[in-house]
């Protein structure tokens, strides 16, 4: 006779019990990609690219114009790949490797336009750059595509 009320109360208690624990959040790595168009036919330098321009000119003094074309910032999980837009239909594929190195640094594998994969590790919050052989425009409007990539945050050595 008392079975049904007891059963209903038990069902309610089960239904109101603590929710199952959620899996731990996956670590997010913020990856920033800059597309920079460099020219030898003008001398305009984007305010944020002053240091970059000086360092590039150590090797190529003829390159005098530095234009920031596209900025992309995405959060990736360890092991995740993403294609980041550069200019036109060109993209750079960035993979955040699954494991950090012994210093806690992030390893990135990138596939720039016209190149095969490059894997490197870099200090945190610092850009690593590359000159591609992709050009936009013709004649005096011809500009060379450079890319700069940065990932953060790093973790201390465990």
């Amino acid at each position: 006779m008392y079975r049904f009320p007891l059963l209903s109360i038990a069902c309610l208690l089960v239904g109101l019990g603590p929710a199952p624990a959620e899996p731990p959040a996956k670590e997010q790595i913020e990856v920033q990609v800059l597309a920079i168009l460099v020219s030898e036919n003008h001398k305009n330098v984007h305010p944020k690219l002053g240091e970059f321009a000086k360092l590039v000119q150590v090797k190529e003094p003829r390159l005098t114009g530095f234009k920031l074309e596209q900025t992309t910032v995405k959060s990736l999980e360890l092991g995740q790949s993403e294609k980041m837009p550069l200019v036109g239909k060109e993209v750079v594929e960035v993979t955040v490797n699954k494991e950090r190195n012994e210093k806690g640094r992030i390893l990135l594998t990138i596939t720039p336009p016209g190149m095969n994969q490059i894997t490197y590790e870099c200090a945190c919050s610092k850009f690593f750059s590359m000159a591609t052989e992709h050009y936009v425009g013709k004649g005096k409007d011809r500009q060379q595509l450079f890319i700069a990539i940065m990932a953060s945050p790093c973790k201390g050595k465990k």
Partner: protein
Amino acid sequence: MTTPRPENFPLELLAAYADGELSTEDRSRVECWLAENHEALEDLETQEAFGPGNVDLWGPVSPPSPSADDWIATRECIGRQMRLANRVRWAGWAGTFGLLATAATLMFVLPAPQHNCVDPELPRDCDGLPPGSIDDEPYPMASSADVRIISLPESASGLLVVGEHPLRDSFLSFAKMSEVQFHNVGTDLAGRFPEVMNEAADDVLPMLWAPREP
């Protein structure tokens, strides 16, 4: 420049003078001409009768301008309806949950559940506004804190209405040679390796330079 004669004086210039649309120089030109051509004063009066300065003529047909009090009252009405709509929504969820819990408990005790549902009544004291509903809520506009821009062409950075540049105000810091280590450097599509700038000096970027096209 000579003052236009009556037979060639443009009526549009007189109308513009009557409506107060002329520059100081043109106004003085017209006034000089009127001083010499009194017969045109009648045309001027006719133009002024249809000008914006004739409040008696245009006043009855001009749209009423809401006062500051009107705007405040309208805003309060919208806010009241939004609050009520939210309350109704939460009340509906709470009522549903309560009914389910009651029904589950009493299902085995009572022969048949009985309950009455009473819909809350929305206020209808806001003249000129339809009865409140969720559809009437003003469109929520995002602020810069609500928007995160993933990718932005620099040519559009000056056109942003809300949202920050993905770089924000950060300073671009480039890695030195001691801060980069290459694990694998692939070739280009022709099988050539890029040039690696790995000189020890800190004034050289640890850059890769894709092989030059021949």
